[in-house]
């Protein structure tokens, strides 16, 4: 067998990482994504008790989280391989539900702040054309960042995650680093 070297979406063997002022950007290479879709009229499934939230929302459960991507459609995130397998089985047995594995299709960058929510809010002001309540903690939405279709998840007051198509990993990393580095004076002032 050929020896293959696992690497992140940015071509680095370890998850890419950068710090700008109070903000730290880290590539999340462990994240597995499962897309769930239901037929119209089918109630939302609860795989392993995970709540699938309503429009624009993100919800955290035991070992997994989920966000809404469209009518009757959600994305489930987990970083535990065994749990992903159990979730897939649970979705397969839910009536009217279909799943597709999307883990390899996306790159995820986690943005955390060690100075409270202000630097994250300032970053969002520069990045997305959405009102603060649409990117409040517990919200997730698909939108445009620098003309790139991304999913923006506000995991907590001081924690943001951005998902972009994996082939655009370099563009996402560039735009996040540029934007974070330009706000360093404002964030530290």
């Amino acid at each position, binding site marked *: 067998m050929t020896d293959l070297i696992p690497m992140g979406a940015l071509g680095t063997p370890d998850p890419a990482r950068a710090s700008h002022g109070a903000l730290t950007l880290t590539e999340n290479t462990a994240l597995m994504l499962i897309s769930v879709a239901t037929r*119209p*009229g089918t109630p939302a499934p609860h795989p392993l008790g995970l709540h699938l939230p309503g*429009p*624009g929302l993100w919800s955290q459960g035991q070992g997994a989280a989920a966000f*809404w*991507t*469209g*009518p009757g*459609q959600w994305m489930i995130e987990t970083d535990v391989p065994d749990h992903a397998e159990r979730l897939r089985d649970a979705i397969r047995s839910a009536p009217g539900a279909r799943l597709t594995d999307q883990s390899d299709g996306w790159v995820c960058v986690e943005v955390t702040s060690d100075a409270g929510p202000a630097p994250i809010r300032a970053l969002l002001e520069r990045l997305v*054309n*959405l*009102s603060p309540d*649409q990117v409040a903690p517990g919200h997730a*939405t*698909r*939108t*445009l960042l620098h003309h790139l*279709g991304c999913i923006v998840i506000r995991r907590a007051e001081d924690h943001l995650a951005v998902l972009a198509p994996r082939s655009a990993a370099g563009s996402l990393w560039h735009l996040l680093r540029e934007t974070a580095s330009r706000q360093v004076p404002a964030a530290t002032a």
Partner: protein
Amino acid sequence: MLIPHPLLGLRDAQEFTYLGDAALLNRPDPAAGEAGFADYVYLRDNPAGVHRELWFHEQGDRSWLVVTRNTLTHEILGAELARDVKLGGTA
């Protein structure tokens, strides 16, 4: 321009693509014949004023909306899910 998405609230028009007259939802019966389909495919009203249009939330949840817009003032008077319009709100 902000479009009031019925599920996601006010969203930037940049996230949408525009298709045109919402009359496209009313596809004629296959038995309508060539004349009926020629009208459906080629003829559009071009009103100066209130117009119902199809917009696609391409960079969002990918739903089709029927947006009522005043073509003179660009005022948006409402937006509904095209699926609800087509299926009579039963979906």
